[in-house]
């Protein structure tokens, strides 16, 4: 026995309404998740507070706890935190050594304040490496060229202060700060010769010297077996 026509239409409309609502809901639920590994990283990290903030929180329940002790607890529990550099700036500045009077030329695109910062920092760094060396003003000149590359000219007299590869490496590493001053590169010349050429000659000399020290052990024709 079939339903009356008007009831059939109502049932059909109810079904259509139900399907329509369900389709909207399913579209919302099934919409693809575009999460990536990057999101994955960010989801897992708790909010990072400063060491100072944690210390204040810890001190609320333990008034005798020091910042150092707070630091050790955070480290022991793997809790990430941010340093507040201001806390360590008071009376903690290492005063730079006496700065040298160096010759600077600015042909690059650093502003005057930026170039002044460069001059100050470079003077401080160079003085720490070459303090005690007596040299004239012309023996170190520093020019920022139009490509923002720093050209450092120094005399053999000055360069000889760097007595070893280790000291040369230390000197070069002390100039890494230039990367945060928008300087694009560094070229060093010793009495007009590129540093690389000077060092290539030294390398060859060292190779021969080490072979000499090695002696017959390095020079004999070996019986492979």
């Amino acid at each position: 026995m079939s339903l009356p026509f008007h009831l059939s239409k109502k049932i059909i409309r109810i079904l259509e309404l139900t399907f329509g609502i369900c389709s909207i809901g399913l579209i919302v639920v099934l919409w693809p998740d575009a999460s990536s590994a990057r999101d994955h990283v960010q989801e897992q990290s708790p909010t990072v507070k400063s060491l100072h903030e944690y210390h204040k929180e810890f001190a609320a329940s333990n008034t005798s706890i020091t910042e150092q002790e707070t630091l050790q607890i955070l480290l022991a529990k793997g809790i990430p935190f941010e340093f507040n550099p201001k806390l360590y700036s008071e009376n903690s500045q290492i005063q730079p050594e006496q700065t040298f009077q160096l010759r600077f030329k600015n042909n690059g695109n650093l502003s005057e304040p930026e170039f002044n910062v460069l001059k100050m920092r470079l003077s401080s760094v160079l003085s720490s490496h070459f303090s005690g060396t007596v040299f004239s003003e012309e023996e170190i000149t520093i020019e920022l060229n139009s490509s923002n590359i720093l050209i450092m000219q120094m005399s053999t007299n000055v360069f000889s202060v760097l007595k070893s590869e280790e000291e040369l490496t230390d000197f070069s590493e002390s100039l890494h700060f230039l990367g945060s001053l928008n300087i694009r590169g560094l070229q060093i010349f010793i009495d007009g010769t590129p540093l690389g050429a000077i060092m290539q000659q030294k390398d060859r000399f060292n190779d021969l010297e080490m072979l000499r020290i090695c002696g017959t052990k390095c020079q004999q024709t070996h019986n492979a077996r």
Partner: protein
Amino acid sequence: MKAISTQKTLHILLLGFILFNFSQCNNSQPAPDSNIEQVVAPPQNPNDPGTLPLFPEPEQTQPPEEQDNEPEVSPELTAPENPESTAPQDQIPEIEQENTEPSINDETSSEEPSTPEPDETSTEPEEPLIKEESTTLLPIDAAPVAARGAYLPAQVSSPLRGKLIALGAGHGYRGRLHSGQNPGKTLQRPWVWRSGNKVLDSRKSNNIADFAVVEDFINSEITHYLNEYLLNAGAKTTLVRELSRQHREIILCPNAEGYSESGPSVFESQNLSAQAGVSCSNNAHYNFVYGNPSTPSTARYSFQVPASGMYPLYFHFRDGIDRAQNIPVSIQHAGGTTRTHIDQSMRSTSSDAYGFPGLRNRVLYLGTFFFKENEPAAVTVSNNFTSDKIVVFDTLRVGGGMDLIPIDGQLTGLEKFKSSAFQYQKFLNRDATVARLSGSFNEDVTTRPHAANYEAADAFISVHNNATGQNVYPYTDSSGRGSMVIYQYGDESTFKPLDKEHRDLGLKMKYRLIDHLREYWDPDWRNFAWGDEGFNGNYGETRVAQVPSALIEVAFFTSPTELLALSNEKFYRTAARGIYQGIAQYFGAGWSPLEVTNVRVTHSENSEIRLEWDTQDFGPQATYFLVQTSKDGLSFDSGRIATTNSATFWNVVPGTLYSFKISAANAHGMSLPSAVVSIKAAASYDRRALIVNGFDRLDSRVNFSSSFDRSGAPVTIKRGNEFSYTPIYAQAIADSMLDWSVDSCDNESVIDGKVELQDYDLIIWYTGRESWADETFSEQEQNLLQDYLASGGNLIVSGSEIGWDLASQQIGNRSANDLFFLENYLRSRYTGDDAGTNQLLPGISVLNKVDAFSLDEGYSGTYQNQYPDYYSPVNGSVCVLEYAIANRCAALWYSGDYKLFSLGFPFEIVNSRAGRASLMSNMLKALEVN
């Protein structure tokens, strides 16, 4: 405008619903357990769409005189578009079913390397493979498939395979004399961090605070992981500086104690051993024999280690034009026997800076294996190959050892890995052409690249960390942040073609490192562009290299933000992986997959064991897996290949403990192994236990100031989390002699619904040192446990930070339910963060048969007991274990609508196996299901 009727609107929505679901059906991946397809789909392009190269479109490189001022790059900074995608099916070895102990003489090998040439591998199949079985079937006791080639499956056919990469972790202890100071040792890059009024200066011994970072050691930590990734990709590595933390060492010299020969025609050479005058006698000579498969001869190096642990194996020898390339080596370790091959042939070098080629003192790394105290072990080298070449029987070294080369006339008394490259090269008995001198002082900087040149490596990578110099204090993030590269690039007068290789290698390494750190560590990781154009002569470490070479400065330890990263082991792994990917790019290789997750092992029907895991959704995909088995959770076999995400084992012996770890792999290499899971079959399955590993934390690094225990003996330095503690629990259950079956899984498997807590009579959930940052129990985990307990389950929880995390009165709770869960379900009231002792008193109440015991102080094989919680009973619990400090409760017991033990310390660090067995046995008896 005619309005659209309601009826038509509903028709449109219905149509849209149908079309949407049709599109979803076409895009969906088959479910992991589907019977349709079990082979992992071909990998995605490793050029992950989420990581864009930071350089503009590659420009044609030009000779220096035509350079413009834009940085020049080599083409293809991105990974190759069509890497090896699937393992060639005809090279997947059959599962061997041998009844006898495999012997290296069973297999013969030609002089030609057994690894496939790239053009021999099959092309990517047009259709995914369909397996009849839904799981890889493996008999539990069959002899494992021995690794072919350099202990990697033959499926690894990456261009990195066989490449020799020289690795240098920068700095290390050197002498002070040539700095004009008093003689003695000094670190090269100790760091100073000022905290309040205290200066944490690592140059003052015994004052290395937790937070002071020593670059000399951090470089070594990162290089350790880089070495692992490269080896897993099929590369060979040669170490400029010792990496192993294993301070114990056994040296087996030719014709000396522990050395024996068998077979004919072994001759003593006129030439001295590679270790003559260093570890061997001044007059030690090596032996040699020609290849002869029909009447093989062997040299056997037999030894016993004084203490159980992981030991690297190194083979020292002198190379030559007549040495063979494919020499069989068999390693008998606690996990069984591993077979591999070594190459003793001379590597050609055009340099005349090291004397005549040939007879160079070389060292090959054979792998790191677990050896048991006083248990016989051996390495056997054979001439079982067909060629007119010889094999040299020289010196085997087991372990990393202490530095026995004096610095400024004095021994350091410290482990070899803490010393500089100069010290290690002297130990390798290399002369001044390698272990360079500056005047009469050792010169470490150029020793590192000279070592790489001497070995004629295919590349030299040096790992460092950065600083902005001592005169820019106070240190702030603005002083310098991010990753930087250093490489040699000459000008008109000094340019060499090799400089372009330095640039290509350096920039690919750096930019892949940055991309990877942004993806997996910090999306804002900085690019420190200083150095991108190279340096001409400034850095001896790169200038002197005659092989493609670059120095990577991973992070700035003068940046407060990056200093934290440099104290975190997860960062070391992430950075190392990024560097490895860059090196792989340089050699035209793809990348190995990421580690598997959701590892679980459960009993299935017919007394079989079902081991399952999941692969990660991102990164290069795995096409097969290496499944390694152990019976003690420490010593693993060489592994067997599984081509699906699960492996079913049969022939299980009831009562036997089995442990597994899995590495994901593809043609480009293997991932690091997963955490270890364990299973024990029982005579019956009336009592089923599940061990859940909730110890994910990996941040703390080793404390380098604590190299020695209180008696002055050096200790083995362990990492923060070795993901190997589940076997300790399973072993304790086995030792209890109670008939419990044991399954195990990681906590993610429970969270993701892969393992149901309700299937078990007992849950043992351990969190180790997991704390607030990683959450001991997340809200989801709490809900799952609450449901389980509400149904009358039994629970043992163990961890040193559960109370501190869930109570977190000092810094707030991660979840609103934390405290409620702790007090109302774990029946524990947090009373204190640090019990302040390693000693526990004899048990009381239901644990009254438990004797006093102690916790590991960091010297006993697991990890250091730090900040163990102490509790007060609440909501019906009682104290059943106390620390040896008055009124500090270490463990609570509750018996009501469910049963529970809540331990405020990690069970796994209970000293002695007997102590753990006693504690576990008594807990199980109290929990016994009627």
